[in-house]
């Protein structure tokens, strides 16, 4: 009896310790690390302006407070230089551990020597993807089928307009338009509104050189933008696009070609929309909050709203959807991985973090968090509108599969070809030919070998 008691006394703690050890071993690495207290320094990179930087910094501070052993090195840049820097970092195997990634650019970097394939980390629970819809997750995979980022926001492109200008126009007898409106109806609306605008203002920014507007045009005409790494839209649809904007420009509904280029690169503070010199333009709706904030300063009393791109004559919706997420650099060490995974989990899953970020770079990918944000009295009205519009278009949108270098190439070649048309150096036909041939040339160069 006593011996049994002794055995029990001796074995039980041993057994308990073994079970505890086994249990701990069975717990996924990331969770284990979090519970034990994470250590180390990781680098996190993202793109964006001041508002996004401040929000990101606040979230990082909260994360660092909760994980006192972790230090997050901030690396931010504007959108275009961000990718150039990432390319150079990738060449030198010096990319950050946590890299903000976008579906449009992912094809360039989605390879195991640049970004870490994340499937195993998801499978063993180190990375938490709870609540992220499968369709959104699928868009985060590379051509090799590997998962390369954990999406945190779904973005789309739309039009922004000045509500007061619209109200004045309606008061003057212009018919308001309700989505879904066709491209023709939209052009007629712009023509009708032009005479009601203040002197020097234009009804629309000339979007002839804007890829974000060209993509919905192509898709709403029933065509694909790319087929793998091949240009898939027709010469005819490109000619129609140039003709559409040339007609509006020649009628004085858009800016001059010089004004178009200036507006294309203008800061929000300098833009026609914010300053009451333009009724509508194309800007990502996730910028609605910052555009409204700037407008309140430079043109008090004006309200900026957002609405979808027009649809095709047969009602086809052509809007593109993309996702932003966080990838892990392939050079991230095993010691840095737990802290990196914990940071990604915090960024993508934590309601407090999502509440601070307020879908600043795309509608938060987890629908429950998006609903909570839309219903929260703390959420800015502009961000509520962003989520509402997303819900309107998400079912009918057509995500474009951008090939490696595709977005860069489209921006470059569409800019140059339409500029040449607008400045009278090429006919619309020659512009369309240039667009297709040079775009294909760049895609061929960028295609993975």
């Amino acid at each position, binding site marked *: 009896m006593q011996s049994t008691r002794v055995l029990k006394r001796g074995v039980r703690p041993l057994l308990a310790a073994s079970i505890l050890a086994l249990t701990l071993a069975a717990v996924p690495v990331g969770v284990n690390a979090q519970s034990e207290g994470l250590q180390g320094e990781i680098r996190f990179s993202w793109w964006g302006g001041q508002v996004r930087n401040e929000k990101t910094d606040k979230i990082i501070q909260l994360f660092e407070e909760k994980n006192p052993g972790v230090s997050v090195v901030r690396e931010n840049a504007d959108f275009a230089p961000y990718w150039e820097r990432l390319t150079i970092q990738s060449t030198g195997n010096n990319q950050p551990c946590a890299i903000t990634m976008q579906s449009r650019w992912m094809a360039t970097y989605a390879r195991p020597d640049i970004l870490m394939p994340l499937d195993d980390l998801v499978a063993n629970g180190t990375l938490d993807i709870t609540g992220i819809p499968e369709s959104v997750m699928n868009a985060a995979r590379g051509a090799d089928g590997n998962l390369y980022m954990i999406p945190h926001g779904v973005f789309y492109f739309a039009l922004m307009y000045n509500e007061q200008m619209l109200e004045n126009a309606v008061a003057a007898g212009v018919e308001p338009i309700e989505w879904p409106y066709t491209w023709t109806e939209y052009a007629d609306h712009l023509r009708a509104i032009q005479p009601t605008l203040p002197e020097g203002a234009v009804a629309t920014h000339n979007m002839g050189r804007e890829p974000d507007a060209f993509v919905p045009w192509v898709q709403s005409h029933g065509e694909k933008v790319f087929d793998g790494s091949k240009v898939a839209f027709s010469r005819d649809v490109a000619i129609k696009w140039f003709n559409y904007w040339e007609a509006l420009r020649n009628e004085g509904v858009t800016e001059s070609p010089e004004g178009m280029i200036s507006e294309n690169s203008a800061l929000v503070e300098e833009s026609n929309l914010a300053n009451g010199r333009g009724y509508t333009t194309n800007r990502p709706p996730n910028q609605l909050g910052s555009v409204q904030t700037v407008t309140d300063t430079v043109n008090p009393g004006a309200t900026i709203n957002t609405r979808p791109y027009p649809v095709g004559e047969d009602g086809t919706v052509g809007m593109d959807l993309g996702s932003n997420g966080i990838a892990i650099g392939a050079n991230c060490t095993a010691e840095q991985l737990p802290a990196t995974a914990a940071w990604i989990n915090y960024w993508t899953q934590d309601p407090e973090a999502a509440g601070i970020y307020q879908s600043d770079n795309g509608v938060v990918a987890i629908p429950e968090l998006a609903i909570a944000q839309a219903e929260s009295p703390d959420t800015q009205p502009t961000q509520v509108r962003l989520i509402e519009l997303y819900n309107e278009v998400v079912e009918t949108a057509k995500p474009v599969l951008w090939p490696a270098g595709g977005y860069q190439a489209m921006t470059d070649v569409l800019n140059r070809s339409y500029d*040449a048309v607008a400045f009278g150096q090429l006919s619309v036909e020659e512009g369309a030919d240039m667009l297709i041939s040079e775009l294909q040339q760049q895609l061929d160069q*960028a295609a993975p070998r």
Partner: protein
Amino acid sequence: MSTVDASNNTVLTAAEAGRPVRVIPTNRTGSAFKKAENRAAYLFLLPWLAGIVLITALPMLASLYLSFTNYAVIGFPTWIGLDNYVRLFTSDRRFITSIWVTLKYVGFSVPLVLLFSLTIAAVLNRGLRGLAIYRSLFYVPSLIGASVGIGLLWKEVFGERGVVNDILGWFGIAGRGWINNPTFALPSVITLNVWTFGASMVIFLAALRQIPESYYEAASIDGANAWQRFRRITLPLITPVIFFNTVLLLINSFQSFTQAFVVSNGRGGPVDATLLYSLYLYQQAFQQLQMGYASAMAWILLIAIGLATALMFWSSRYWVFYGDR
């Protein structure tokens, strides 16, 4: 044994002065001593040598190798022989455009900078009061002119709602977006470059101050007017400096990048109007990630600059006067 120095002072030997005498070891031959001295020299040269090898020579050799490869930055280079060079000259329309834009830029920039800097230097050399202040004021743009900040400022000045149009507006002239217009964009960038004439001006000023006043006095006595004095005395005597400034400006202008990059948002637009060669090279390397192609462009640029400089040196024998010949 004591000796006498140039000032007629007696100089004692170490032994006479009671200082320890340095004894040259008998087993060290002359060549061993020389070797030790050479070693010391190489040791002192090492930092420079390391820099030239690691930072200049090796990257140049790597670039030469890459110019014969297809190298998309991300991934490994694959050997394609002369394909990059062939493609540049046979099927790249923008490459030819960038050469043409660069030639226009160099062709206008270099003479205009020379003209401005020499004219201002000649004016400042007339013994103005507060010369140091003027010299500094004119020199400052050459220090900051190639910066991103000044590029951005220029963009605002020549923009649709910029200062230039405001001034034109006072005279009832409707302006335009100068830097966003294909006709005026390159002249705007050239104007910015000409504004940075200060460095050349300072060199000219130093050269002008070296010319003896007596030459001008003699010419004046002989009845030479101001233009004749400048044409017959000043200009010939400063031809070595004109040559020096021209070569420097030529090399810098061929490599000009920042100003065109900033005013065109890195695109070389509108319609490739500001697509300088270096900017196109940058686009190929860092925007389209064609590092092999960009390397080939870099070598062509190096050869072009080398040829232009060689041409300048060859021509110098006909127009540069060194005085001692």
